[in-house]
């Protein structure tokens, strides 16, 4: 889910057009536009898009 808005310990995230409020207490330096993994109403970690691209490249090149 993507962070659209941050208000203190909470953030508004969107996924597939649906918006909801989640806790961001455990995130280090959350920013608008970050992709996050959400579990039971809280973001548990950010998704590292650079690492995701690296993994996709490894998968592509894997022999």
């Amino acid at each position, binding site marked *: 889910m993507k962070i659209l808005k941050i208000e203190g310990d909470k953030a508004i995230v969107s996924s597939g057009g649906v918006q909801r409020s989640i806790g961001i*207490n455990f995130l280090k330096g959350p920013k608008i536009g970050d*992709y996050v993994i959400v579990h*039971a109403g809280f973001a548990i970690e950010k998704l590292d898009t650079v690492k995701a691209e690296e993994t996709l490249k490894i998968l592509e090149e894997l022999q």
Partner: protein
Amino acid sequence: MKYIDEFRNLKIAEKLYRLINEEAEGLCQVNFMEVCGTHTMAVERFGIRRMLPENVRLISGPGCPVCVTPKNYIDKAIGLIGLEDVIIFSFGDMLKVPGTHSSLLKKKSSGKVKIVYSALDAVEFAEKNRDKKIVFLGIGFETTVPTVAASIKYAKKKKLKNFFVYSGHKVMPPAMRLLAGDKEVNIKGFLCPAHVSAIIGIKSYADICEKYNIPCVIAGFEPLDILQSILMLARQVKLNIAKVENQYNRVVRVSGNIKALSLIDEVFSTHDSEWRGIGVIKKSGLVLSRRYSDFDAEKNIDFPKVETKMDKGCICGSVLKGIKTPLECGLFSKKCTPENPYGACMVSSEGACAAYYKYPHPNLLP
């Protein structure tokens, strides 16, 4: 959601199957275990288990939190409903689990059982209904625990006297260690849980590699994640090495989530805990720490005495340990279905029996 379709690419999946087959050639029979309910569902949904070479067996471990919750916990939770002013709040998965005489679902019409998506919802209800005692059923592994810890901390901040957690929380590495040393299960590699690892990091698995010579690969939830992780495990087995590898590094950091970990440490402490079908595992459960004992349901509420009778014919225990598959159970899909579950593994959407039942003819990819 970003990075879902990318990790379901059919062409790359076919390549991974080919590479796993090549790697498996010449290997003895190997058992790889997944210990995360979401992996179990993905593996069934995408038919991965059945597409692997014959000598690579993927077995499901105790990765579903509802399934490993002892029956006595359910009975005690149901017992609470009889108390005046008590309202139970729970994640939805728990409701259908059969206790000895009833289930939370059957008691729902009393208006004293409510489903929530987050523990925080229960705290907010407690804040608005101070004449009621709110008991939240804390079920879940390390992924869920910090969310409950944050909710308890919030209740403390709001000085609530009517919010309690009945903690059945568990942590995964002690169970993995127990299974690693079980010769009957005979595990040659672990697919480590994705989101549990996002919290605890990768170091918790190092001693499993060292002590039991079992490779551990932290795997994401998409088909390519799982297939790549199986390939990584097979390559380690072939080279006779055992180390922790992190396939899901787009989410899992080496040290885990420090903020969440310190919150768990603050609010909970470990104790010996019973796992349904497995028994008591040392230091595998979490109860509220002394500092937060005012929010501990077991310390502040007089639980009515209940009698728990053990299941007959249900092989959930062997299924949870990966010794048997759901198909080997005489009750599976006959007496035991998701609509009328007999054992916990059929109840939870993450249970191995529910996964086998839901996807009798899985597709390679959607």
